């Protein structure tokens, strides 16, 4: 009996001291997966959402966060970043995406994540609680295939992307899914222009002797060769898989092949970066042929591919909404309307910013999509429950529901609205201070 009393006593003391157990009182809760609930409370226990309701009463001693007039949302998830892997874009030493090598499935982004990166603090302040971080996302940081520091041959398989929280003592601490996806940079035939800085307008003068650089026939040949190489690599992996299962004599562990097995078994999806409709089509065909699950990253157009994607239930991570059209004649709002297009075609998607600097603008990207035709609820889902589902963690994250982790934000208003302030942020129920290097510099210099 005494031990029980001691236990209870300890538990009560634990509550009081525990930093991942508390009640959020009297808030407007936006679960995302259901209707909004006004004026309710949320009980967080041991880092999980234990209960949501109007009648929750906090036990004595439990910390209470008064959220009158405020809103509770799930923390946002950015499905395309290089956070922790790249600090200053222009400084090679600070960038760890873009390794050498054509097929590098054994590389793990997770272990190169620097928990001390200033970027985490900056994005937390805007309500982002977890991100997918990719080895060579194709953002402006590294990029074996096509980033600033890509060296050597064209990289095809860049390695394992990880789903991580934006706070933690170590990368182990931060890890949600150590291998959330395998990044495949699908071969491509260079088009006229690129994204980001704007398309290269057609010069009237290009007309005479064709474009400088590799001809299309050459480029097409290289493209097909690379797809062949990719298929060969997969064949090798399957062969390895067989030999491994059969404990073939003389069998030697090959780390690259080991890394491919979960992909072949369908346990880890292949995140495929493919931007043009023809490449998307070929990527889907490849996935069919190899019988693997894929997620499409950063398509620049959907067009015909949309129907295929829907038919095969292939989810899509849409890149920067705030981007210029590809070609001179493209509608000015081409990138703004892509999410609405995906939605209308019935394609499931989530947003990714693909640029460390702009991760904090994730909600505003979603809002712009709403201005140009995406229903508001879909935009909200695309930064919360959709990514959770796509990356296989919907049981733990993505909405304010009982049993899920308490990755929550408390805001002064609409999560996607620029003028909204974030008041509190919780990762697994632990409150994370909304300060970062920038807020500290602000405090210092406003007082000069």
């Amino acid at each position, binding site marked *: 009996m005494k031990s029980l009393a001691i236990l209870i006593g300890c538990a009560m003391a634990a509550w009081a001291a525990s930093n991942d157990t508390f009640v959020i009182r009297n808030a407007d809760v936006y679960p995302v997966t259901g209707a909004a609930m006004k004026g309710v409370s949320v009980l967080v226990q041991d880092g999980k959402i234990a209960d949501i309701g109007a009648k929750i009463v906090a036990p004595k001693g439990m910390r209470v966060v008064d959220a009158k007039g405020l809103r509770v949302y799930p923390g946002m998830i950015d499905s395309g970043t290089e956070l922790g892997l790249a600090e200053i874009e222009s400084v090679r030493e600070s960038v760890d995406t873009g390794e050498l090598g054509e097929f590098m499935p054994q590389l793990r982004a997770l272990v190169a994540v620097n928990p001390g990166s200033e970027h985490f603090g900056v994005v937390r302040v805007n309500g982002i609680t977890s991100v997918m971080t990719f080895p060579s996302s194709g953002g402006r940081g590294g990029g074996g295939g096509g980033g600033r520091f890509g060296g050597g041959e064209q990289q095809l398989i860049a390695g394992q992307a990880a789903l991580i929280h934006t706070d933690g003592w170590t990368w182990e601490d931060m890890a949600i899914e150590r291998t959330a996806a395998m990044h495949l940079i699908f071969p491509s035939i260079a088009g006229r222009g690129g994204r980001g800085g704007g398309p290269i307008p057609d010069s009237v003068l*290009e007309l005479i002797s064709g474009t400088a650089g590799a001809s299309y026939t050459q480029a097409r040949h290289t493209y097909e060769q690379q797809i062949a190489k990719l298929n060969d690599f997969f064949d090798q992996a399957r062969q390895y898989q067989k030999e491994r299962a059969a404990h073939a004599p003389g069998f030697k562990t090959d780390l690259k092949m080991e890394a491919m097995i979960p992909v072949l078994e369908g346990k880890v999806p292949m995140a495929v970066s493919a931007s043009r409709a023809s490449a998307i089509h070929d990527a889907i065909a490849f996935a069919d042929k190899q019988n693997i699950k894929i997620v499409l990253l950063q398509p620049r157009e959907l067009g015909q591919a949309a129907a295929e994607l829907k038919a095969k239930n292939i989810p899509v991570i849409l890149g920067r909404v705030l981007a210029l059209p590809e070609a001179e004649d493209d509608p000015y709002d081409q990138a703004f309307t892509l999410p609405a297009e995906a939605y209308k075609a019935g394609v499931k998607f989530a947003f990714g910013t693909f640029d460390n600097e702009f991760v904090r603008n994730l909600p505003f990207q979603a809002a712009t999509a709403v201005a140009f035709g995406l229903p508001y609820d879909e935009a909200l889902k695309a930064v919360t429950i959709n990514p959770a589902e796509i990356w296989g963690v919907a049981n733990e994250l993505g909405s304010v529901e009982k049993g899920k982790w308490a990755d929550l934000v408390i805001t002064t208003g609409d999560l996607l609205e620029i003028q909204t302030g974030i008041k509190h942020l919780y990762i697994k129920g632990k409150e994370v201070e909304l300060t970062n290097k920038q807020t500290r510099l602000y405090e210092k210099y406003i007082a000069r």
Partner: protein
Amino acid sequence: MAVRNARIVTVSGPVIDQGTVVLRHGLIEAVGANVPVPPDAMVVDGEGLTVYPGLIDGLSTWGLPGAAPAAPTATAGRGGRGQTTVTTTAPATPAATSTRARGPEDRPATTSWLKAADEISPTDRRIETARSAGFTTAVTFPTSGIFAGQGAVIDLLSAQKPGEMVVASPAGQYISLTRGGGFGGGVGGSFPGSLMGVIAYVRQIYLDAEHYKLVKEAYARDPRGMTRPEYDRALEGVLESKQILLPANRLVEIDRMLRFAAELKQRAILYGAREGYRPEAADLLKKAGAPVLVSLHWPEAPRDANPEDVDSLRTLETRDKAPSAPALLQKAGVQFAFYSDGLDQPRDLQRAVKKAIDAGLSRADAVRALTLSPAEIYGVADRLGSIETGKIANLVVTKGELFDDQPRVQFIFVDGRKYTPAAETPAAGGRGPVAEGPGVDQ
């Protein structure tokens, strides 16, 4: 010599359905329907043939074999922002710019004193091929650099002495605005590294030339007590040039160059005129009274293009409408002439002119654009460009109409000397074999 009983297109007057042209001492002695054939003349039977004035290439490099094709108007196309203008100079830049230029005072890419007349090489193989296409004359320019040098009107003779070929020199200063695009702007390279840099340089040169002239004149009047001015051959070359050639393909460039020429107070001839079909272009040219050289190298679709990359509407339109520019310029009353712009195979030249005719230019106007018009533009219309008594005996005699689908040049007279066209050679480089019939793959 006399060509008898031929159809004669004089260009300066009505067509003579059947007549005779008499040549003597390299000049046209007589032309007309009832001209008597002198007893000492060698007679060429012109029955069923047509006589035209020899064609004049309004902007050429024929005779200067080392030079790049005149103003190749293709660009590497990598302009980061907006569109780059004419680029690519000759592979070998002249000695003047072997070290990196640090500013306009280093006179980068400038050989304004160079005269084509001094550099003519009669052994340039293109002279012969040009003749086979009906050309007797070319206005040849050095084309390498910003101030490339001064051109000359030359007759396409297979002469012993180059001096024999020169009809008039100098014929104007060739200016090109060759610099790249993107954000680079020549960082780490030689000045100027950008289009605006080139323009600023040209502007500075003209300011310097004006100043130089003042100083020289003052010194000439009374040198006593004055520091003597330094001799600047670049400025001398610029001052020598009575007119300048400026590149302008797009409407924006035509506007820009006309304004620039007015600012520099120079008589300018624009070359390129790819967007000459746009009514605003014709308006600007008419208002400025500036003559324009229209490139015969019509824009074409790139050969090996990615089918997923669709050209812009602007590009498609230009490709579609460019050959109609001459007809529209003609209607607007703009003075223009054609130039070969790197084409030198007879078939290509014929086809190019035919395209303009198909797009609305009358055959007579097409002929004029290759004969009297360029002569007028370069101020040699008193000697060339039409079949009139006293003019130089430059003639091309064809079976069938010039610029027809199958014309055949029978002979050419240059300075009264008779040449027969060479057998057509397979085109060297560039286009591949000129084959007939469908389905020939490149």
